[in-house]
């Protein structure tokens, strides 16, 4: 133990030199004071002091940044390695029969699969390069909010998506799964539509949405507004339908939507409360793990697994509902009734969507990752089942969450409060 203490103390002594010059004096002060501290408390004194001085000097953030860059570099290297080796698929291979098929001598390279996994691999590289750039720009998607919850959700979500794309590329290489049935060119067009919609809508909505609401209330007066707002509404709704079709058709678009969603709710300009992120992401992680446990190999799919229907039909929606109600109730403390209604609805919607999205991302990554890494067979008929879950789970979460937020607001209004008819409490 003494030897360990001495080693840690030596490390701490060396770490003083890493602290930037303007803060080094403080790190040396912590070290100098260590001589006064009794032996059995010296290690915690030095470790605690140096850690906090390092945090004050921004070293921890710098280390985390470089670790993230290193992780991205490893991911990019993995992708380059995949592209270099090419896809190797055993002849007549069917994913459902894994692991009875084997790769080995005389493997057959399927050009179709090669194209698929190469496109996914390129998508990964684009994602890895684009994410840090988008996330640092000012706007609807960045930079990240100051709250710890937003940082954790953003880093965890983006890391999860990168892992998912890598798993997809690996799966296309090793299992020959037919993931991207849509041709390259069509995929690119759908992705362009998705990115345009996801980029333009936040800007448009912030600027024009109040006008559209006013129009529905009959408040729009000028001829220009009476033409402008319906056209805008039509474009937004029509674009939403096109987006839905794109998400339904292309894995790339789905991934782009997930990235946009995670960046938007965790951006500095987002009005979503940090507690909503905690409730939504926490419930999503729990739901994803429960779902994964229920689908573990050998338990069968919906037709033969008694565990799965209650989990899919009851547990996951219940988690969406619970997170949404908790998030909506958390904001029912505002004095402005209109703001209260809007916020309860928004927080519920985001919490529900986050629960559904995180659960779907987790279950898809875990199941496909387990299939690729551990060569275990899961009883889902196709990978598309998981992508359907990834698409519909956040949408169902939005529906449940917005309804829960609206109901929580209505219930709150009906409940007599000691401070007034609307239950006005002091602001946070």
């Amino acid at each position, binding site marked *: 133990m003494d030897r360990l203490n001495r080693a840690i103390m030596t490390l701490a002594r060396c770490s003083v030199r890493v602290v930037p010059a303007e803060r080094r004096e*403080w790190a040396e002060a912590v070290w100098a004071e260590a001589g006064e501290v009794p032996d059995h*408390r010296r290690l915690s004194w030095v470790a605690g002091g140096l850690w906090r001085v390092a945090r004050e000097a921004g070293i921890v953030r710098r280390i985390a940044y470089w670790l993230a860059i290193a992780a991205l570099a490893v991911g990019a290297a993995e992708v380059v390695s995949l592209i270099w080796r090419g896809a190797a698929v055993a002849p007549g291979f069917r994913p459902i029969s894994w692991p009875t098929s084997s790769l080995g001598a005389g493997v057959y390279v399927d050009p179709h699969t090669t194209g698929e996994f190469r496109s996914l691999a390129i998508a990964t590289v684009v994602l890895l390069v684009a994410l840090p750039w988008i996330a640092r720009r000012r706007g609807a998607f960045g930079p990240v909010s100051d709250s710890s919850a937003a940082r954790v959700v953003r880093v965890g979500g983006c890391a999860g998506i990168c892992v998912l794309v890598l798993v997809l590329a690996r799966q296309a290489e090793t299992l020959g799964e037919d993931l991207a049935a849509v041709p390259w060119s069509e995929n690119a067009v759908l992705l362009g539509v998705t990115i345009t919609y996801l980029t333009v809508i936040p800007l448009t909505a912030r600027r024009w949405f109040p006008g559209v609401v006013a129009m529905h209330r009959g408040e729009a007066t000028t001829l220009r507004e009476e033409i402008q707002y319906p056209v805008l509404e039509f474009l937004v709704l029509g674009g939403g339908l096109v987006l839905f079709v794109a998400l339904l058709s292309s894995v790339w678009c789905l991934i782009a939507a997930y990235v946009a969603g995670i960046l938007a709710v965790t951006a500095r300009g987002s009005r979503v409360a940090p507690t909503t992120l905690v409730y939504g992401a926490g419930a999503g992680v729990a739901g994803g793990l429960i779902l994964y446990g229920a689908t573990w190999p050998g338990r069968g799919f919906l037709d033969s697994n008694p565990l799965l229907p209650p989990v899919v039909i009851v547990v996951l929606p219940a988690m969406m509902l619970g997170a949404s109600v908790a998030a909506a109730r958390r904001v029912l403390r505002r004095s402005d009734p209109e703001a209260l209604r809007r916020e309860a609805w928004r927080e519920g919607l985001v919490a529900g969507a986050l629960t559904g999205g995180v659960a779907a991302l987790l279950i898809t990554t875990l199941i496909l990752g387990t299939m690729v890494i551990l060569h275990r067979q899961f009883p889902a008929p196709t990978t598309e089942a998981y992508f359907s879950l990834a698409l519909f789970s956040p949408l169902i979460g939005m529906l449940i969450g917005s309804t829960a937020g609206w109901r929580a607001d209505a219930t709150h209004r009906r409940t007599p409060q000691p401070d007034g008819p609307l239950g006005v409490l002091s602001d946070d």
Partner: protein
Amino acid sequence: MVRDRDFSEQTLSVLTALRSRPGTWRHGYDLARETGLKSGTLYPILIRLADRGLLESCWEGEQPAGRPRRHLYRLTSDGLARSKEVLIEAPALARPATKRRRTVGGIAPREA
């Protein structure tokens, strides 16, 4: 202008300790024992107070035998004036942390 809400309970206890002997140079462990704060809490507070010009610091002049030179702290004139204001405004928060936490990482605090 420093806002009052920037002074946490722990910061106020450090200010109280420093004000108890104004003009005297104090070292970090001495302050830790008096306030009941751990090094990980105490040093960021000292850094922020110094950044705001409320605290001055220096190294001990001569090299003492058998131990390294200490880093010493005391309130500046601005620090004394500001701490007087905030401690009058928030006397309940200014009581030493030792009243709430009896030990400094297991070490019994010195009587204030």
